[in-house]
């Protein structure tokens, strides 16, 4: 019973802990599959870059409307989409490769975003935007996150096959007359959408962590796309739960605590996961 009290007590006792857990569940449901696809498409770094690209948009929203959910969300979504499209366009029109173009945009965006927030806000506001406030998440934000998760899962259900095919064998998809470019754009929009949802809870710096770390860990546990996505969701949820407890008992900021938990799960996956982990490597060598 003591263990039960320790593990479930904070969530039974406090509404804000329950809300945070629901938020994490919704983030995991959308972010798990998106992160899995980002890795399969070798776009992990682009996810990272896009998460920073959201910042100046959020900051503009903040300048206009203060800590207002619709203004910051809309700004973040617009900025993310703009950078995604601009990077793709620059990669096509100039010799700069898409990943280099993303990197350039993201450094620029991060600096610009911090500057914009500082124009009006305090350091507390800046921390709020960068690291999120999942423990004080309100109904509107929860509905937004859950809505994004719903849209993401439905859109992925529709785009699932062409998305995977475009990543496995892009020329094959094109030989069937498939619109690879449109599918890529739709996918990038989903990535931005999930990052904007994640920023509410975890901040622009940490949002991508709950997307990428569980997805990167999943490959040590599963071997097919659907199971990779399912494991990502489970690991993200576990990280969210463990991180919230960590932040509760340690009086630590919740966003970073959740990502640290995801990081620990990642290290465990690398060490002892059933597929190609260090442990398996050691065993198959029969040492």
């Amino acid at each position, binding site marked *: 019973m003591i263990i039960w009290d320790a593990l479930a007590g904070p969530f039974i006792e406090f509404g804000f802990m329950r809300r945070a857990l629901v938020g994490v569940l919704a983030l995991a449901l959308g972010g798990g599959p998106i992160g899995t696809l980002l890795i399969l498409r070798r776009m992990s770094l682009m996810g990272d870059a896009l998460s920073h690209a959201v910042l100046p948009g959020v900051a503009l929203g903040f300048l206009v409307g203060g800590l207002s959910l619709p203004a910051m969300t809309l700004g973040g979504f617009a900025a993310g989409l703009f950078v995604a499209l601009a990077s793709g366009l620059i990669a096509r029109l100039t010799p700069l490769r898409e990943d280099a173009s993303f990197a350039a945009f993201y450094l620029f965006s991060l600096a610009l975003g911090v500057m914009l927030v500082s124009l009006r806000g305090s350091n507390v506001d800046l921390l709020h935007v960068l690291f999120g406030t999942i423990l004080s998440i309100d109904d509107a934000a929860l509905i937004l996150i859950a809505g994004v998760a719903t849209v993401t899962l439905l859109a992925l259900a529709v785009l699932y096959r062409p998305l995977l095919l475009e990543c496995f064998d892009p020329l094959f998809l094109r030989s069937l007359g498939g619109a690879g470019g449109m599918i890529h754009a739709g996918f990038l929009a989903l990535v931005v959408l999930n990052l904007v949802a994640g920023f509410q809870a975890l901040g622009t710096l940490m949002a991508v962590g709950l997307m990428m770390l569980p997805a990167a860990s999943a490959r040590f546990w599963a071997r*097919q796309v659907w199971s990779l996505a399912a494991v990502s969701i489970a690991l993200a949820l576990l990280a969210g739960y463990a991180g919230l407890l960590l932040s509760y008992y340690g009086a630590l900021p919740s966003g970073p605590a959740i990502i640290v938990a995801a990081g620990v799960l990642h290290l465990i996956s690398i060490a002892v996961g059933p597929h190609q982990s260090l442990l398996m490597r050691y065993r198959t060598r029969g040492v």
Partner: protein
Amino acid sequence: MGTGLTIEDLSVAYERRLAIQNIAYTVQPGDLTAIIGPNGAGKSTLLKAIGGFLRPTQGRIMRSPEHGAVAYLPQLAEIERDFPITVSDAVLLGRWRRIGWFRAADAADREAVEAALAAVGLTAFAWRGVGTLSVGQFQRMLFARLMLQDAPLILLDEPFAAVDQRTVRDLTQIILDWQAEGRTVLAVLHDLDQVARQFPRTILLARRLIAGGPTETTLTPEHLEAAAAMADE
């Protein structure tokens, strides 16, 4: 049932550098044609233009019938070979026109996959991940997918690069069967002995068309020298 091709004054450029220039050639329905030439001669470019993946800078390619399906085998480097998909599912992609974005595979689809896997000797590998296959096995799997596509025009970009001799022999037989069925096949190849033995027609490229037509009149020392000289320019 094969597709005929008329290539008229075709040029294709990448970033304003011409990869192929002023190609004119006619492929009769049912032709089995090898595309050869030195490195950088534009062989893959020509194949991609025929497949409709590259837009001509100049000239055009006409297919007859116009809307027949095209089955295209990419170079291995253009495929994600570690992708988490089973051999069976990868071959099933050949039935995309029937299955598409949403339909489930039915018994007929599954049987077709089994038959194609048997034909390329991969039955035992059906449920393995594609990442576990050797280069030769991977190429066999892609040929099984091509079989399911059942297309009148088949384009093969370096089907035998880094593939073991036995696989080359088995897959060549499949290509000859396709020709016997009346399909039009174009393949980018490097092994000139194999071209001379098994491919009735040949296109020799070095950015421009050096020669094209029956293999015995195309694969002459003079033509090959001319191609090598143009490649060195």
